[in-house]
């Protein structure tokens, strides 16, 4: 079975023109990793691929959530051995909801949706617990395969959840550490996502984190 065939035509589509086998790395995430608002060559995955001289497989899904990240990474790791994994975790408060046979990821702007709203009203734990669980799952998958994995997010993470992550020996690089931020602006073409300069900074920072990871 060709990899192209295997991944095409699923609801977990992603922005990736061509899939390759052999030495490579994978990234996952939402629109940020999908480089929405930029040419795909300006995205951090493409920059890393260029700098590290190996193909970067971008398994991100704009608007996606943690479940989609886990699904795509799991499917990839089941059949491939990348050199490393970069997991950009989307905003935790997103939920994949099925209605009438099709799926949509609802987010905090979906407050008109009574189901999403009720879930949020019951407690943010309805989102955060699964989000953390997904991170743990990918961590263990990568540990099992001895593949370095860098977890990062552009979101702020409440200290209580950071503590849970630390207790589980998961290092999530968020913007909470003011000495080492992920640059953000709204200078992509859509005026919502981030500029090529931000992606370049993310790529630099990720390279540093990968070096730390592989030299530990």
């Amino acid at each position, binding site marked *: 079975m060709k990899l192209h065939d295997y991944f095409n035509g699923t609801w977990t589509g992603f922005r990736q023109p061509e899939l390759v086998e052999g030495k490579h790395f994978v990234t996952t995430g939402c629109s940020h990793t999908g480089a929405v608002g930029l040419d795909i060559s300006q995205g951090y995955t493409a920059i890393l691929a260029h700098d590290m001289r190996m193909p970067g497989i971008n398994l991100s899904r704009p608007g996606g959530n943690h479940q989609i990240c886990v699904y795509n990474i799991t499917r990839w790791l089941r059949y491939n051995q990348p050199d490393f994994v970069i997991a950009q975790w989307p905003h935790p408060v997103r939920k994949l*909801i099925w209605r009438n046979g099709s*799926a949509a990821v609802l987010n905090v702007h979906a407050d008109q949706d009574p189901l999403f709203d009720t879930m949020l009203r*019951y407690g943010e734990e309805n989102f955060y617990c699964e989000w953390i669980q997904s991170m743990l*799952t990918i961590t263990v998958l990568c540990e099992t395969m001895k593949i370095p994995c860098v977890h990062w997010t552009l979101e702020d993470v409440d200290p209580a959840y950071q503590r849970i992550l630390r207790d589980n020996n998961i290092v999530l690089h968020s913007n909470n550490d003011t000495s080492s931020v992920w640059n953000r602006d709204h200078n992509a073409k859509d005026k919502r996502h981030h500029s090529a300069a931000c992606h370049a900074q993310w790529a630099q920072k990720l390279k540093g984190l990968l070096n730390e990871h592989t030299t530990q």
Partner: protein
Amino acid sequence: MTALALGCSHTFGVGVDSSECYVSLLEKYYNTSIINTARPGGNAQQCLQQLVEHLRVSSPEFVIAQWPNPFRRTTWFGNRGLDENIHKASAVFNSLLAASSKNFMEPWLQCIYTADTLCKLSRTKVIHILFEDLEPEYTELIKKHNVVLHQDLKLPGQTWLFDSAGSDNLHHSATCHAQWAERLTGLLNETT
């Protein structure tokens, strides 16, 4: 060496003496200790969580994954998580069900797929079992993902014996557990 059992009340052994539970019978047969992580009323997400946590720190000889009914989930009320099912359901549970059964089936399938991949990559033998009936479309989907799920096909050698003769008149008798252990032994020996 140890092994791991995941599941709900069936694997926990509700309704039978702990020595009669199929997990204990397998322990005796294989002369190995099996960590029984099953939780009565538990759901697939919790089974996956148990597997992830155990694989991180140990290398079980094999894993028995008895997947609970798909229509179960944990709903959080603040920091209190409640295990829900169709008989004990919050507004969120009912709304998810009303929207589509896929809100339960898809995450359930994903748990099985992820667990299978984790076991495959860690070279851990896993037997997936299901006591519930499953719609053909999902059986096909599982097959398509190269996961072997042993269901109740109601065929000789491919059935799980059921009654409601556990001490609570809801769960299954020691006879059922003995048959499950026998079938599982066969499946485990097949995969060796």
